[in-house]
């Protein structure tokens, strides 16, 4: 008498429940496979992904590109510049030929020349990408490590541990971050913590950004942990004799990988902008090392004559940030269990 029902139960798999949610035949695909399929169909996100890959390659291969083009990001060429306004000359041979509205863009200098000193913008932008990406990636990693650890601990243990960590997150989120960063950059002398020059600068930027931005990840991880903790598999693991470490890292963490991945992708652009902002304010990377924010800071003096000096590094920031945002949004949608297609 129960036979037909039994057959139905096992043969149909998870179908009856699934129909109501509008997904069918997905039972045998893992969540990641489904997400990947969705992501592949999301052309905008894929475009973002491609731009990100190209950028990373360009940054990594910056010295190779410099060698190929035979240019250097530090090579001054003041002869090409208009002595009066600092803009690139229309005719390098004629100092009186006026300022080129395109900023000296040519095959040799595809992004033009830096006003005032004639350095090659193309290479400076690529070397700037190096700094931007290194700082943003490392800071994001720092955020993720601190945020995940504190978030998962706070969510899982609850009680006063949670109270303290949550309060700390609230406070961090309410900090006047930029001012703190400025202050920190102002008081730390050169040659501290065993680092100096730009090594110290990069380290400091990573620390400031990573240390003050972790609550974004922390909050998400805490929230997810709170939700997961209510799921009975945590109690089930405990009732099998598993300790806290097993539950935190073997049971909970695998469930947190996806949100952490998604929100790190969305945190990277925030951190890129943060780094650029600090460099713009003059507390980031020291010149002459190129940075996008630093170029825009200099552009304040030249925007009337050399608009390309605004546009080129600005677009570099914009496109990078946009690409990461597109990819992150796409990832988030792809992994969203509520979406039906």
């Amino acid at each position, binding site marked *: *008498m*129960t036979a*037909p*029902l*039994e057959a139905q*139960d*096992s043969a*149909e*798999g*998870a*179908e*009856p*429940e*699934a*129909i*109501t949610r*509008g*997904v*069918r*035949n*997905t*039972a*045998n695909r*893992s*969540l990641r496979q489904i997400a990947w399929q969705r992501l592949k169909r999301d052309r905008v996100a894929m475009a973002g992904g491609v731009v990100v890959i190209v950028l990373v390659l360009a940054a990594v291969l910056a010295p190779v590109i410099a060698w190929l083009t035979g240019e250097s990001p530090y090579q001054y060429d003041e002869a090409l510049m208009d002595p009066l306004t600092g803009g690139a000359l229309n005719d390098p041979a004629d100092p009186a030929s006026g300022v080129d509205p395109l900023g000296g863009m040519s095959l040799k200098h595809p992004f033009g020349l830096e006003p005032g000193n004639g350095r090659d913008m193309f290479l400076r932008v690529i070397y700037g990408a190096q700094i931007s990406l290194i700082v943003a990636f490392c800071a994001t990693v720092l955020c993720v490590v601190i945020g995940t650890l504190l978030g998962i601990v706070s969510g899982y243990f609850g009680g006063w541990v949670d109270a303290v960590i949550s309060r700390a997150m609230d406070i961090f989120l309410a900090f006047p971050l930029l001012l703190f960063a400025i202050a920190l950059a102002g008081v730390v002398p050169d040659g501290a913590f065993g680092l100096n020059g730009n090594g110290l600068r990069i380290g400091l930027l990573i620390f400031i950004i990573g240390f003050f931005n972790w609550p974004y990840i922390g909050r998400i991880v805490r929230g997810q942990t709170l939700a997961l903790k*209510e*799921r*009975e*598999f945590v*109690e*089930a*693991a*405990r*009732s*099998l*004799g*598993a*300790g806290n470490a*097993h539950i935190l890292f073997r*049971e909970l963490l*695998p*469930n947190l*990988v996806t949100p952490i991945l998604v929100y790190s992708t969305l945190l990277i652009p925030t951190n890129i902008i943060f780094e650029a902002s600090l460099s713009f304010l003059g507390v980031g990377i020291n010149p002459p090392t190129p940075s996008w924010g630093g170029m825009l800071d200099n552009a304040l003096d030249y925007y009337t004559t050399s608009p390309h000096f605004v546009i080129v590094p600005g677009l570099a920031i914009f496109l990078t940030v946009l690409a990461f945002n597109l990819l992150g949004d796409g990832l988030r949608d792809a992994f969203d269990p509520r979406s*039906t*297609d």
Partner: protein
Amino acid sequence: MSTPGAGKAPAAATDAVVRVRDLTITFPTMDGEVRAVDGISFDVAPGGALGIVGESGSGKSATSLALMGLHRGTRAQITGEIAVVDTDINAASDAQVRALRGNDIAMVFQDPMSALHPQYTIGNQIVEAYRSHHPEASKADARKRAVDALDRVGIPEPARRFNSYPHEFSGGMRQRVLIAMGLVCEPRVLLADEPTTALDVTVQAQILDLLDDLRRDLGMSLILVSHDLAVVAGSVDEVLVMQKGKVVERGDVSDVLARPEHPYTQALLAAVPRVEVSRAQRRAQVRAERVHAPDSAAEDARIAASDAPAAEAGESLSVMESGAEIEAGEPLLKVENVRMRFKVRGGMLAQGQDFYAVDDVSFELRQGETLGIVGESGSGKSTLSRMVMRLLQPTEGRVTFEGRDITRMADRQLRPLRRDVQMIFQNPYSSLNPRITIGDSIGTALRVQGERNRQTIKNAVRDLLDRVGLEPEHYNRFPHAFSGGQRQRIAIARALILRPKLIICDEPVSALDVSTQDQVLRLLAELQDDFDLTLIFVAHDLAVVRQVSDRVLVMRKGKVVEEGEGDSVYENPQHEYTKQLLTAAPVLDPAEARSLRAERARARGTEESAAAS
């Protein structure tokens, strides 16, 4: 008259308030179209009551939303004809449908906790329903009607509660508020979609009684949608059984329940646990059916013989031996005067108040016995089982297992205990880690307990998968590839892998469809026989508890109100609350349902007069 199949159109009732013909609802998805409702037809006469019954995925909810025109604006494609009070829902303009909603046909939803807007007072929300259909009505008039409606559904002090927010009400009260909201325009049809699924059994009875009263007093038609045949039995005249979008059976409720014709209805009815069936009867039935399935018996023998990992580990005694040993002496489990206190945050600068989730509970359990613990939400039954499991530490009292006091043992000391006491959880969708393969999930216990040999673990897991009726080859699959019933089997395998002596089942079947419920209960019974298990069976469903338990504890608000042999508690309840529970339990026989309803009404009458005097 019971007409199987949906082919024949019902006798054309021209005066029907709801008329559905050949309704088909299709949802486009990534993997093609899913036909949630497939050509169904029915009528509801004025003042009539129709029950729509089906398990999850049967299309019953899609149907009820279609009656309200609530699929508008979604991607659902609807064909066929739906006429509600002579308005063609599919053809009508948005404005026409709106004029109908709430005014001619009102709907009550499943989850009263989320169906009310949290930021407006209930009065505001009811008045709004009235004034949107009676824009000419004055504020005072609308308010008066809202208060009347609240009064009608049994909200005490309606005029004062008018200004309360939803979070100030309990679930049952919120459902009453929603019904009041539906009533305020005096609709001709009330559509209730699983109105009691989220509620306790006594509250469920109150809401069903209320719906029945309202229908009779106000001459409304009622459409009651439920997964539970017993819920509709006492409240409707006609019933429609749906399976996978089709109507498989339709007819007068007493005919369908007494003489089901379609095999699906028959199976569904057979699977419904009946409170009148005793433990002995059920056991005999299960064992008898088992003998007729020699395959599985042979398999049992094979597995019992090869009883691999536990025997190899050499630590746990053979189940049979230990059983014999203990039966002679003291009880396997002894719980003495346990209490569990939780701090509740106080209001105005007040100190936190103490709240006892479990208050002075004692019981003993002998080897091989099954103890049923029954109670509604807030009764403390889950807290109690978690204290026995030592997932919670009792505030006071003592828990003794095999003579050892485990009340205050530290986690590390508890680890050996975990071999002997295991738990099966309520919700198989949340009790399995979605990111871990089922093989690993089941094997975790062995690993945590110190087994290092991967092959040993794997073999043990595969044997158990086979034993609980799953394919051993599915070892590397993730939980989402399995249905609810299959997942509960996995959870059972996980609890069994350490060969425990005592298993605590916390509502093990309440998240499952009726037919799956029955299979899981059978499996548990078989395993109890084969492994000589002692069980604590915690549930809110009286019938389920009766069928599996030798003894029963009835809990209410943290205290045990009645304890005894299963049959005596059910046939001769002593405590008022037990009686109340038993009269509230939904039954399949419509006649009996009505007599129970009358009994409840009498009980309420005496209560009220007692309160008044």
